[in-house]
């Protein structure tokens, strides 16, 4: 959920863009990361563990922990907490170590 009123902060939202997550369209802003846009849409399960296939969420949000890796525009192992949304971007859950197309 996006915060609309905050006692100290004012959020400058970027331009509206649409990304697709596992085929579903998600409204996003071009100055937020993929993981943030998914959170705003109520999606917190973004990564997957490789062996036990357990869902993973954000842990660090600054690129340190690899818990948020997904396939973005066909490229696996993208840390979605760092990558900004672009219009038309496709984002998919990654179930394995990832292979380059």
């Amino acid at each position, binding site marked *: *959920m*996006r*915060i609309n009123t*905050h*006692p*100290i*902060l004012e*959020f400058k*939202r970027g331009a509206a863009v649409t990304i697709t997550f596992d085929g579903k369209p998600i409204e996003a802003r071009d100055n*937020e*990361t993929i993981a*943030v846009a998914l*959170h*705003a849409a109520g999606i*917190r*399960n*973004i990564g997957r*563990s490789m062996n036990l296939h*357990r*869902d*993973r*969420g*954000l*842990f*660090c*949000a*600054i*690129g*340190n*922990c690899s818990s948020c890796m997904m396939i973005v525009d066909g490229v696996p192992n993208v840390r979605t*907490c*760092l990558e*900004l949304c672009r219009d038309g971007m496709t984002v998919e859950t990654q179930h394995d170590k990832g292979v380059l197309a």
Partner: protein
Amino acid sequence: MIKTDLLVIGAGPAGLCAAVAAGESGKDVLILERSHTPGGQLVKQTHMFFGSEKQHAATRGFDIASILLDKLNAMSNVRMVTNATVLAAYDDGLWTADILGKYEKIMPQAVVCATGANEKSLAFPGCDLPGVYGAGAVQTLMNQYGVLPAERAVMLGAGNIGLIVSYQLLQAGVKVLAVAEGSARIGGYLVHAAKLRRMGVPIMTAHTVKAAYGKESLEAVTLWALDDKWQGIPGTEITYRADTLCVAVGLSPLSELLWQAGCKMLYVPALGGHVPYRDDNLRTSLPHIFVAGDAAGVEEASSAMVEGTLAGLSAAEYLNAAPADIKERKNDCLSQLAQLRSGHVGERISAGLELARIKEAAGIC
């Protein structure tokens, strides 16, 4: 191949101050920052800073970042590149980076490593469920991007980060059910703790998480009391219906690049983990590599800024571009650091720093 006099890795408070200090010497400075925005942890800190005027006390973290960025923008010899992750250091002095998705080689004369720190985690049943976050991640979500993690949170850790992020969760409209702290005392400043108590949040000392539950993501958290040997006491369990668990149990220095570069390292619990040996000028065991901020030992943003300035001055000196008043400026940094490190938390840090200090006479090789 990119050539530069000084490479600064990381654009948090330490890296920005290092770049300002070194930039004033006229040398070419390249700052590489992994994120798409500079400022490091400062950009998500909405509270006013302590410390003295020199470290921007009473200014909010994100305003400090923009003051520093304005200074850098005015210098034509300083270049900042975001979306740029430094990947590796090689024996011949070469560094590599992923810059906007391209693999680049960099050959700097000197390096200031200001990569910051990594949030620590804890192992408990359910610790990998979505909804279990580092407290800093929640701060990033809320304060930098204006997005809520969820609705009902439990905080683990009553150090400054745990206390401050709990307060910020309340400000953003998230219910904070409890703050659990393993040790018998609150670690952070009591002003922050008092604010939470006034808002009705229980702070449970000598308590920790027993387990986190949930089918697809976090649904409940069980806390329990700890005895004086830090063992859970059966029968004291309390379960909260929570969709968010923030883990604020400390940070460890992001010092891998220094390790790889060949700097001599030491494990110092008081500094959060492995840190490089360094002398009073923040020079590591390798003469051209300097370190500053959390990467040198986890402290806070005020000391990171002063260390950044000191490392930037030392790097300029190494590059034969020391300003005329370098002695006074370095001494000023050292006395600011001594002041920031007074008090009981500072004592522990100072003792840790002493272990990793390269003493002039003894030398390290």
